[in-house]
């Protein structure tokens, strides 16, 4: 104890100060580390989910000017001439599946309306529908990658058969 103020109840020795500090630090660290560990435990490291990359059949099976809905993948395949694109059918608002209409697309949940380029015409959707990258696999199938978004004017162009 410091001899100069022997009767001060708030007086604290150097050893006492370090004990208190270390104790509080250790306690705080233990609580934060436990909480962080528990939250990290809840974040899965391995997902058993369908692949984001899928084959969408032969290009020639799509009629020219057609828009084809693939149920299991929740996408629309769009063919215009010899160009191929893939449009997400998942509404950007809250994830419902949009329906195709004459002028574009319409979400049944909260009424968002999109044009045929996926742009928002009206409703609560914050963004247009996503366009996914389309490539051609080695065995001549359309290959869609739902993890890669592209601009609406990005096409897969295939040479027209003569």
């Amino acid at each position: 104890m410091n001899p100069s103020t022997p009767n001060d109840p708030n007086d604290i020795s150097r050893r006492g100060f370090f004990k208190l500090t270390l104790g509080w630090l250790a306690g705080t660290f233990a609580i934060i580390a436990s909480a962080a560990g528990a939250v990290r435990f809840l974040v899965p490291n391995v997902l058993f989910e369908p692949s984001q990359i899928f084959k969408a059949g032969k290009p020639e099976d799509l009629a020219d000017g057609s828009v084809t809905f693939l149920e299991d993948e929740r996408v629309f395949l769009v063919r215009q001439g010899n160009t191929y694109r893939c449009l997400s059918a998942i509404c950007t608002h809250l994830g419902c599946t949009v329906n195709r209409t004459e002028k574009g697309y319409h979400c049944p949940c909260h009424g968002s309306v999109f044009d045929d380029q996926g742009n928002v015409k009206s409703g609560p959707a914050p963004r247009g529908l996503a366009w996914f990258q389309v490539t051609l696999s080695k065995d001549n199938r359309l290959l869609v990658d739902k993890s890669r978004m592209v601009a609406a004017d990005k096409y897969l162009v295939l040479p027209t058969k003569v």
Partner: protein
Amino acid sequence: MNAPLLKRLWQTFARSRVGRSIFRVGLPESNLERSQAMTSSFLLHIQPAKVHKHSLKAGYSLGLGLISLYLFFILIGTGVLLMFYYVPSTDRAYNEMKDLQFVVSAGLLIRNMHRWAAHLMVLFVMLHLCRVFYTGAYKHPREFNWVMGVGLFLLTLGLSFTGYLLPWDQLAFWAITVGTNIAGYAPIIGPKVKYLLLGGNVVGQEALTRFYALHVIVLPTLALIMVAVHLWRVRKDGGLSRPDESGDVIEQIPLGQLPTNKSYGLMELARGTTPQVGKNPEDEVFSWPHLVFREILLFLLVAAVVLFLAIFWNAPLEEYANPIYPPNPAKAPWYFLGLQELVSYSAFWGGVVIPGLLVTALVLLPYLDRARAGVGRWFARERVVANSIFTICLLAAIVFTIIGTYFRGPSWSWVEPWQQPPAITEGR
């Protein structure tokens, strides 16, 4: 003694060696025993031995908190029974619902009771919140208990939401989809919270497992603990709010004029914010039987209403979850339809900002509104401003809910309820 036979039999048992070992006190016959009946029983000692007459007035509290608690008990009872059959699997959950409906003895009744008690609990927790507001009961010294109450209100909504996901029907699947997407709109942590809730990127088995764990153990345990704290605080904050409780008893009754023929003394008078303040012994009655009997009666009434509803109206079950096509229109239960109507304008503003602000306002309310006047009376004149603001918010919530319920048709389009809804021309 000319007591009825049943009472005499009970008294004989209660005063026997075995009876005394269990109950300590038989049917109370003196005031001392009436106190002991409360304090010597584990279940009854949660409540005070004596209770203020004002707290027993049905027209003041309307018993709304107690009704909510009873509904919670019914939900625990029926919920535990349902757990003996339910399997949180996307393949089996829906079939278990069908089994409960058509195969299991009393399965339909118990599921119906669980469903009706859940809807009633949301309703009565909301009404209880309104009652506490309109009587100014959240004011000092009950600020923190109001905050606990807001927490319990949110837990009730969380329990309802996680509950209606479990049947894995169309409502369940699309409610998880929409609900977790709303969570995803929260700033910064939104996408991470969504990932954590779903246990992945898609709505599937992992999401069902997580919502199941939340529904049957995490949220009910939290709710039970908070209910315990809520009730404990009611006692510690001086029982139910009542008018003019701030008066200093010692000043009201000059010491020399204390009646001498009473069994109480100065120890029953206290000042400050302790629970005893304002409890003039003359204003109190013994909890046994005045409070206990009212409580038992109210429980019977609540149980009867739930049973009546469960017998005559079945809990709905939509089609098996179809991850491709949402139902059209896809509507949440009534208590979320106001929110759904808001979300249909903007997911961020209607789903995150406005609910977030409302909850923040509710939590901060007792610390912002520090005026002391008007506690313990319905619609007190001194509280006209606060009551008006609250009423406007309440009316807005009701209007949005009514619009969402009756004025929204396929694709969330505007429909007047007295008109034939337009035919669904798109989708399935």
